[in-house]
């Protein structure tokens, strides 16, 4: 099994993200591997353990994104590749998919390319299916379980309507959700190995493609209007009294 996991680096959930002069800032908050992509790496490693083979983590991003790749290495990935090029600073998901598809071809002989469900920053959840389209491979989305059987892969797809079993031929593109299981913590050995790893950087020239056109363009960033909520604590002698008052308050809000 040759597996590729696609990961992105994003500001941590706890970060106070703000718009300043049309730029997005998050102060000193750390950048982390996109939490959904930890599940992707976990899913990839599970398959490597079950079937043998290798996992390569791939990220499009600036030099600093090597830290996210090191996390994937520390979790147990065998290889990490950063794709970085000044021409990629403004990229929409279709563009990212074209670049990732080129990287998958350059790596060669992949059986499976695994994605997270979506990113925390732009959060479109489009890139996996767009990479599948660019490669012409089947898309098996929202996998909560993965089972490879000969030349096919079968997933349990987790959606609002419950689970369904979906099957397609390898090579295939998958996206992974939380039901795959908690991402493993990097081991001490893993962290040591990752800290010493040389991560190659590929440019567009290395991939042999031109910068993709950007179709989706950001015009403006807006800070959402602040919500001033002051909590009103409902007290009372008995639960029945509290409930009585609370129900009246809620009914007065006219939301029922």
């Amino acid at each position, binding site marked *: 099994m040759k597996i590729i996991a696609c990961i992105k680096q994003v500001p941590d*959930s706890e970060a106070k993200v703000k718009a300043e002069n049309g730029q997005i800032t998050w102060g000193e908050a750390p950048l982390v591997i996109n939490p959904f992509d930890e599940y992707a790496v976990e899913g990839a490693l599970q398959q490597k353990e079950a079937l043998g083979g290798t996992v390569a983590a791939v990220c499009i991003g600036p030099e600093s994104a090597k830290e996210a790749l090191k996390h994937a290495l520390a979790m147990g990935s065998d290889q990490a590749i950063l794709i970085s090029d000044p021409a990629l600073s403004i990229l929409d998901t*279709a563009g990212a998919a074209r670049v990732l598809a080129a990287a998958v071809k350059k790596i060669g002989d992949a059986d499976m390319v695994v994605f997270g469900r979506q990113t925390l920053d732009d959060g479109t959840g489009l890139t996996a299916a767009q990479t599948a389209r660019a490669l012409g491979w089947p898309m098996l989305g929202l996998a909560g379980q993965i089972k490879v059987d000969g030349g096919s892969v079968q997933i349990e797809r987790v*959606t609002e309507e*419950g689970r369904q079993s979906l099957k397609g031929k390898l090579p295939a593109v998958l996206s992974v959700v939380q039901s795959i299981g908690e991402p493993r913590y990097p081991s001490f050995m893993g962290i040591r190995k990752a800290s010493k790893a040389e991560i190659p950087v590929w440019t567009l020239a290395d991939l042999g493609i031109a910068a993709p056109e950007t*179709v989706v363009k950001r015009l403006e960033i807006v800070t959402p209007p602040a919500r001033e909520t002051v909590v009103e*604590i*409902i007290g009372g002698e*008995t639960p029945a009294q509290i409930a009585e008052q609370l129900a009246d308050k809620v009914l007065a809000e006219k*939301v029922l």
Partner: protein
Amino acid sequence: MKTLVYIDHFKGEIQPASWEALGLGKSLGSVSAIVFGKGLDAIIKAAFEHGAEEVYAADDAALEDFRVEVYASTLSALASSTNPNLILFPMTARTRELTAMTAMDLNSGVLTDVTGLEANGDKVIATRPIYEGKLLEKVTCSAPIQLVTIRGRAFPKPAQEPVKTGKVNKVEVKSEALTTVEGYSASEVAVNLGDAGIIVTGGRGVSNNPSLTPPDGLDEKQAEIWRAQQGFALVTDLAGVLGGAVGASRAAVDGGYITYAHQVGQTGKVVSPDLYIACGVSGAIQHLVGMRNAKVIVAINKDPEAPIFKVARYGVVGDLFQVVPALTEAFKKKLGK
């Protein structure tokens, strides 16, 4: 503006945000509906009743199960031949993948999970939350056929006109499916949190009722799940009286108390109901990003310091095992149920 609206459904069960998309399309100009699947008469009828001028229908056995490759090829061919300015979709797991692939075929892009839309000639400017709703961005799509998915409950529903009908255009299926659906789990009911106007959520606190005695023969973990299920029964009763859906924190899902489809938050679902009642939920940031846009938030938690109270409009500091059933009774009485 010429708009097509994709009506998303699962085995004939229509995603309500499809009608919100249809209403939005109508407010922008001419609007026709797109319906894919097998056995579509009821959906086509409903599309006319909600304001579609025409319907494009691909009724074919190859489309019985949603398989994204064949759906996307069929949609791309339809878009190329009809040339709309805009295709609107309700945001669902299916339309995420469908729009993604269709955009690749059309050399276009998708404005995803949109909560606001303005028209500027034949172009749209969409507003969408980014960074887990901490910011909003305004985005455009420079391609001639713009694709937009809208978040449920962000746009008003159009009124229904019972007798309206119109022209149905038959759409041919293009290409082959690359996957097969081998089966659906029957045990899970659809949990449509995105469209719910009222959500009652249980957190880890629902397992914390020491005065309940689990049946004999359960190990510690089984006893915890048994306790949690008693707790969730109370949450479900309250949701039932209010006509709402049941949500869960990740701790509740990871604890095995309830399925992942119920999870609200960063790795679950982002919801925006009118009323959100959080029972035994601490209010970790990863939970808050999923629900803080609810109109009215009620928190029931025995810890007065729990961060959930920072986003709540009303709070009760108390034991959910006492407060929740009392609240269910109070609403029953006041709503005449």
